[in-house]
Each structure stands twice: as C-alpha cells, then as structure tokens.
C-alpha cells in the first residue's frame, strides 16, 4: 500500500475537468493512489471546436437527408392515429447520423473470440439501412473482446471439463435458486469464488447485468442515499432506479467531489425532509470500461470509514484482470477485501464465461440469497457456464498445480503496460490508468471513429469504436481490450498499423513529451 504513493488523510486529486475546453494540459502531481499512473490529457482547443463543428455538420446533413429521403422503416403499420412511438430526435439520430457508421458495430463473428477472431464479411448496398453477407470471412487480430485472461477457447481444460459437465447434468436447470435450482455445481462455484476473493461467502447469478439490476434493490430502500460515480455502468443505474433510493452523482473518480457530497449529506441529512439518511452507499466500478481508469480505492475506503458509508464495488472489468493474484482492484491496491462491503463482479470477461457474483460477509450473502429478485424469480446459472468458471478460476488460483494462471496474469500486465507505453510514444491521446487493460484511444471526431474502425478492419485488426450517446459528443474514441493471449508480435503489428493510420488520419493529438527510448516488453 505504501509504495503505491498513497497517504492516508491526504485525499488528493488532480484536475479532472476533461470535458471542458480549458487548456489544462499540465497535471497537478499530488500524492494519490493513482496519480502519475493515470492520464486524461485534454484535447487541443482546435480539435474541440472541430469536433463540435463536425458533429453539427453531420446533424445538418442528416436533417437535409431526412427532408429528401424517406427512411425505409419510418412507418408503423396498422397503427394510424396513434401517438408516435419514438421521440423525434431519437429516431432521427439513429436513422440519419448513426446509420452512416452503423457498419462499425454489431459485426457478426464466427469463431472463438480469442486472440484472433474471424469476422463474417458483410456489405451494405443502401448506405447502412441493411447488410448482406458476402460469404467470405476475415481473420482479424482481436482487440475488441473482453477476454482479459484468454480463457475464451474451444479446446483445453475449460472446454473439456465443460463438455463433461454438460453430459452429466445437462445444459440448463429451469428453476430459480429458491425453488429447485440450487444445484451442487452452484454451491461449488460459490465456495470457490469466496475463497478466490478472500471473503466469507459469495453467491452467483446467471447474468452479469442482472446481478446489479436485481440485487441493488435488495440492499437499498427509499430513504437511503447512493453516491454514484458518473461513469457507472447502465446496470448499476438501473438497479439504483429500481431500488427507490435517492441517487446523487459525483464526478468521475473525483475524491474531492465525493467527500464534499458525503460530508454535506452526513451533516445535514436529507435536505428535503431534514432527516438523516438511513444509510449512505458509495457505488463505484473497479476499472471503468469506457474510461480505462482505475477507481481510487484506498481513498474511497478511507472516506467510507470516516463517513460511515457503505461501499459497493463493481469489478466487472477488474476481477481477474487486475492485481498480482488476479483478485481485482482490492488485490491491486493490497487492501483487505473486508473493507469493501459488497464486492460484485462478472464472469463474462476474465473467466470467458457468463453471469455474475456478489461476495462479502456471510450475513450479507445470506440475506441476498433470501431476498434477491434473481434468486427468487430468475432461472439459475446454466451448468456449462458454471463449469467454465470453476475450471478457469482454479487455473487462476493455481489449484490445477501449474503456473498457468500466474503466467496469464503476468502476461496481461506486461501486454497492458507495453501497449499503453508504445501508444503514448506514438503520440496519440489515451485515457486511463497505466495498468488498466482497457485502453481508450481518443479520436474525438465522430467521423474518425468510423474511419479508424474501417481502416483497422482492412488491416485485419478488430477494434471497438464508441461515440455519442455512449460518450460525450466531444470524446469519440476507439477502445482496445488487451488479453493475456496476445503475443508481442501481434501487439507490435497492431501498434505499427496504428502509427501509420495516426499519421494519415491525424490522430497524434498528444502534446506530452514522448519517450525517445525503445520500450521494453
């Protein structure tokens, strides 16, 4: 904990206002758990202006387009006289703006989403309204899937043991846990998960999204306050909405803002009623999937203790991917898992499976088992999904008697640092923490998202583009997800291509000094 540059009581932070237009290129260096390791470089003013201009141009073109060309799916049939089903702007945006680069998303694949992935080629003959398959396939380097530890595989111990389990107990158990869906294999997964995370108990669910959406309402009720990070995932936001608790949003990873809100709410209570809050919960993610940032956990734990709040930590992108033992951000910062009241995570990413877990004290888990919406009404986790988790988690923990898991964790950490440093050397702006395997590369302009994704596909690299409304209008980005199964040669190839296209497309926005020395792998 000490060598992470963290000092208790000094809740520091750096300039976070990366959406504004001011030139705050210089970062204040204050002692903080992630200072010096995390970067959110501002875009040059010119780029910001151009981005807005580009976006408005797209909108205007869209409106002109709408005037002259009626869309192919504009009409709802047999519903004359009904109020329109969709908001005008919503359908305009998806039809005339998003459609232009629609080909960059929902791309069908036909292989394991491993280090390489095979795309099914498709073309559009009507400007993105519809697609046709050409019948050909393209094998691409996969920088798009969440396969952090490389457990997405169709052979090897995971696939073998999964097959065995399916033959033994079938593909599904169509009953909720509270009825007859409590299978031996679920109990095994829960025990192992608790052991892996170093907590008393854990319980698992069939879907990661639903783990948040259906369990937050169990923990909260009206009269409770939740302080939620502004970049939290949709599932957390939905869960909070269903819980009926009051939600206030604090600036992304901004400890000063969090403390200000905590303080005010502890002292003054609910300002509408004057009553103190029943309980206050801080909701954060371990690694934020769109920002690539890592939560400032040591500071949050200190704040939570000081203000007697509870902490809900969503480790969807960090469990397996962070920490020397792959146990997530708690492990990364060397903290005690008991300092986090509710540990939540998913098995989709690092474990190559599906579903999610909640872990913590036995008291908490018992209560969730009894009152969770998912345990009472939704079908349980399918046996193949459970077996994949068991096998991959045992490998990560080294219970299979090999170094395989450790090697994978190390490989991911090495790939992450190497890839991030090389990108910085190229001179593009990347967001986030140096150890986060999610790497957003800022391209700003909406049209550049499409251009980069298309060109990279031509060069046989599959990446994800993200734009408005998933990010602010200003911050269109390309996201790379690294994996332990990427080799140095694969990364070098990707970096070389990115370097080339950055010159072509003008992506080298960074004004930081570049490391002149070659980066070691």
């Amino acid at each position, binding site marked *: 904990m000490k060598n992470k540059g963290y000092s208790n009581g000094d809740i520091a932070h750096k300039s976070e206002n990366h959406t504004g237009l001011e030139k705050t290129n210089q970062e204040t260096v204050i002692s903080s758990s992630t200072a010096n390791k995390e970067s959110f470089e501002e875009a040059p003013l010119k780029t910001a202006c151009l981005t807005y201009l580009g976006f408005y141009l797209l909108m205007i073109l869209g409106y002109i387009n709408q005037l002259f060309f009626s869309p192919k799916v504009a009409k*709802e*049939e*047999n*519903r004359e006289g009904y*109020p*329109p*089903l969709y908001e005008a702007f919503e359908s305009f945006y998806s039809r005339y703006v998003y459609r232009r680069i629609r080909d960059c998303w929902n*791309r*069908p694949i036909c292989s*394991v989403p491993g280090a390489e992935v095979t795309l099914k080629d498709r073309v559009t003959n009507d400007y993105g309204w519809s697609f046709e398959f050409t019948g050909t396939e393209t094998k691409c380097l*996969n920088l*798009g899937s*969440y396969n952090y530890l490389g457990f*997405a595989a*169709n*052979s090897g111990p*995971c*696939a073998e043991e*999964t097959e065995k389990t*399916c033959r*033994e107990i*079938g*593909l*599904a*158990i*169509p*009953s909720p846990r*509270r*009825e*007859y869906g409590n*299978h*031996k294999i679920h109990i095994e997964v829960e025990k192992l998960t608790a052991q892996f995370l170093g907590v008393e108990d854990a319980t698992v669910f069939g*879907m*990661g*999204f*639903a783990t948040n*959406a*259906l369990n937050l309402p169990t923990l909260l009720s009206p009269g409770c306050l939740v302080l939620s990070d502004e970049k939290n995932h949709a*599932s957390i936001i939905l869960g909070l909405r*269903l819980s009926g608790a009051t939600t206030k949003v604090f600036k992304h990873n901004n400890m000063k803002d969090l403390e200000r809100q905590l303080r005010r709410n*502890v*002292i003054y209570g609910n300002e509408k009623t004057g009553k103190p809050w029943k309980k206050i919960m801080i909701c954060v993610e371990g690694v934020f999937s769109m920002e690539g940032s890592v939560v400032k956990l040591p500071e949050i734990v200190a704040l939570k203790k000081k203000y*007697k709040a*509870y902490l809900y930590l969503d480790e969807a992108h960090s469990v397996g991917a962070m920490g020397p033992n792959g146990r997530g951000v708690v492990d990364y910062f060397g903290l005690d898992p008991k300092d986090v*009241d509710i540990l939540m995570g998913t*098995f*989709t990413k690092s474990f*190559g*499976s*599906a579903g999610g877990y909640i872990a913590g004290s036995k*008291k908490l888990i*018992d*209560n969730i088992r009894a009152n969770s919406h998912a345990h009472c009404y*939704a*079908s349980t986790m*399918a046996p*193949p*999904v459970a077996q*994949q988790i068991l096998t991959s988690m045992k490998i990560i923990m080294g219970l299979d008697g090999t170094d395989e898991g450790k090697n994978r964790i190390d490989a991911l950490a090495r790939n992450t640092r190497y890839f991030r440093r090389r990108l910085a050397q190229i001179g593009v702006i990347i967001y986030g923490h140096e150890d986060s395997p999610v790497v957003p590369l800022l391209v700003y302009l909406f049209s550049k998202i499409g251009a980069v994704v298309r060109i990279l596909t031509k060069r046989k690299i599959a990446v*994800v583009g993200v734009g408005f409304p998933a990010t602010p209008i200003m911050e269109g980005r390309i996201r790379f997800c690294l994996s332990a199964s990427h080799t140095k040669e694969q990364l070098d190839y990707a970096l070389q291509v990115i370097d080339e296209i950055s010159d072509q497309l003008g992506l080298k926005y960074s004004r930081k000094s570049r490391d002149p020395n070659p980066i070691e792998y």
Partner: protein
Amino acid sequence: MSILLVGEIFSILLNTPTYVLVIEFILTASVLCMIFVRSGPRDNSGRKRKLTKEEEEEAIKNYTPEDLIEELGYELSSKTVTGRVGKHITIDGKKCLNVATHNYLGLLEDQTILEKAMVSLKKYGVGSCGPRGFYGTLDVHLDLEDKLAKFMGAEEAVVYSYGFSTMASAIPAYSKRNDVIFADEKVNFAIQKGLQASRSTVYFYKHNNMADLERLLLEKIPLHKKNPKHRRFLVAEGIYMNTGEMCPLPELVAIRKKYQLRLFLDEGISFGTIGKTGRGLTELLNVDPLEIDLICGSLEWAVPSVGGFCVGSHFIIEHQRLSGLGYCFSASLPPLLTQAAITALDTFEEHPEMFSELVEVSKKVHKELASLPKFKLSGDKLSPVKHLFLEDQQKTVEEKILILEQIVEKCLSNSLAIVDAKYLLDKEQANPEPSLRITVNRKLTDDDVKNCVNVLKNVSNSIC
C-alpha cells in the same frame, strides 16, 4: 411630478381587485422566503446559520447509519439438487418425480440438442466475451433470431441472454416517463420490474377482467385528451405464471384497436406449448400476430436453454438493439446455449405432434388435480402451469405458507418433487395467494399423473 406619480400608483391600487393584490403579495413573499430562508440548523434565537467546523465534526461523529443489511434471523432452507434435471430430479440425494421445474416438452433430456450444443462448444468455446454491439454477435445468434422470427410469423426477433431481463428491458425501451401503461394485476415479477423501470404511470386492471380494463380506460380518457402525445400501452401475459390462467387475447386486441393502445404480450409459458404447432396463443386463438405490437417469449421453459426473445415488426424490434438495456449492456447468450435453442426450434418443426401430446397431458393433469378435495385449482386446462390454492379461507397467509411447506416436505419424502411458488411478498404488486405450482411435462405417463395426485391427496389429508 412626484405627486402625479403617487396619485397614479394609488389609482392603480384602487382599481386592482383585492384578490389580485393578495396573490401578488403572497407571490412576492414566497420569492423573498426562498431567497432568504434556507433550511439548515438554527442558532439559539431561531435564526438559521451554518455549522462551525467543530459542530460538523460532532455531527459526523454522531451519525449512526442503519446496518447495511438486517440479520436474516432464520436459516434459509436449502435443498441441493444433483445430477441432471428432467422428468426426474434428485433432491438431497433422493430421486423424485418432477412436477416442479419448467421443462414442459421434456427437451432437457433430448440427446440431439445436447450433442449439437457440444459441437458448438468445440467451435466457439463457452462465453461470447462481449455484448452484441462489440463482437459479441456470433453467427448462431443471427441464425436463432431468423429462426424465431420465421417460427413466430414476425419480421424480426431479438434475443436476450436472460429470461428475466427480456420483458424487464423491453417495456422501458418504449414506455418512458409521462407514458401510460395498463397492465393486468397478476403479471409476473419481471414485467413488474419493467413497468417500474419505465417510470411511466401504471394502472392495473383486475386479473383477466376486460370490463374492469374498459372501465379504467374510460376513466382515463379525459387525462389522455389533455396529453394526446403520451403513448399508451397494454401489457398482458399469454398464460399467467402466477395463476396459470390464459388471457382473453381477442378481447385484448379489440380493446387495443378501440382505444389506440400498443399491446405487449409475454408468451413465456405459451410459446412452444400451446397451439397446433407450438406457436403460442396467437395460433391457438387464431389472432394475427401483427395485431400484437410485441411478443416476448422465454428460452428457459419449453426450450432447454437460457434467455428470452422478443418478436415483432422490424420497426418495433430494431429499436431494442439500441435501447433495450439488457440487450445492449450485457454479454450475449453463450453460443452453445444459442445452439441448443436453435436445435430445439428445429425439433419443434420436425415433431409438431409434441404439442398435442403435451396438451393431452395438461388436460389429464387438470382433470385429476380438480378432483383434489383440499385445494382449489387455478389455471387453464390447456396450460402446462397450474396452481393449487388451499381451499381453507380462514387461515392467514403465513399459516398457508407453513402448511404448503409441510406438504412439499412430505411429498419429497414420497418421491414427488412439487414446489410452493416462491414470492418476495413485500415486493410484489398484488399479494399473490400462496400456492403449489404444478408444471406439466410431456413425458408424464398416466401412472405418473395418478401417482402424483395420490401422493398429494394422502399428504394433504394428513396435514390439512
């Protein structure tokens, strides 16, 4: 000059009606109040002020939040299932006849479905490692969506990776704040969550009572006239999970037309069970699927897989690909489970006799259960899901739950797996009556049915 001005003001005051003056005064006073009076602590003389640093620290020290969660206070009964679940289920080591889990067609034990899923496992691995938008769309997902759309006679289908999240995501994708939803009071919990997530105004009508629905609609007409832009929806289940009853679909469609509502139908149970070829309620009651705006179904009950789907016109379904939360923000359905669903649909088409077989068993079970003396049977005779309510009306809900639990235990010791439907009573919309939920399996023989009813009869006689 100044005298003139004073005179002018005086005459204005005189000519203004008193009530206007009063209103103006109140308005001014409240604005001043809002500006100057702030909530917060007061000092001794009653004036408000900010706390000092020490007082703030004191307040922080004195703040005692509630516990994160209450002690459960009781031991959660946990029955452990081992082995493969099918017509029989092994609970705590005892093999029982299974009338408790949803496996209407008995496809969980189908070897072809398993083998094809294993081929898929060897091609794709287990997880899809991403949401549909980000390289999580596999060719099998597109195949399944095509097949579902064709099977249901719709333009397009969308597949979700969790049954619960299907209806719970579909409703808020369309219905927003200010919109109005009319829903049956007995809709299942997933729909209730969807209604809540939409933040729309929801009106519940009495279970399957069309007169009550019309009364509600008529009552709300003035409201609708005021806001004609607000969308209005009608939400119902094909066969209700909580009662086993079937909804009067033709009447619902007529009401939809008459009052310009959009109809969402959850065919979770009815998909793959009723209708000559298993296409659900629309087929059984001969209703054109186009009359229903959105049909949702489950891949967890008749189909031996996981997940759910929605079908409808391209205009409707396309929207969920960007706005269905559980679709956009969740990893896609594991490919081997997708393959299992595809193979099950193929089986539906190859063996349409399955559905008439199931209906026969459902009818038989219905007839036998109706003869039980201590219970009131609820559910359509064609429905594979039936509820047995306790006849005794004197008992409280807690007493009934206890009795049903005892019945379940005794049935288990007699090698019959039966379940008392579990609800989160404090979270449910309309307090569901405690019941035994019976699910029919196509593979049940006459002897199985007789045996099941006999056990139930003996057990209930000994307990009630």
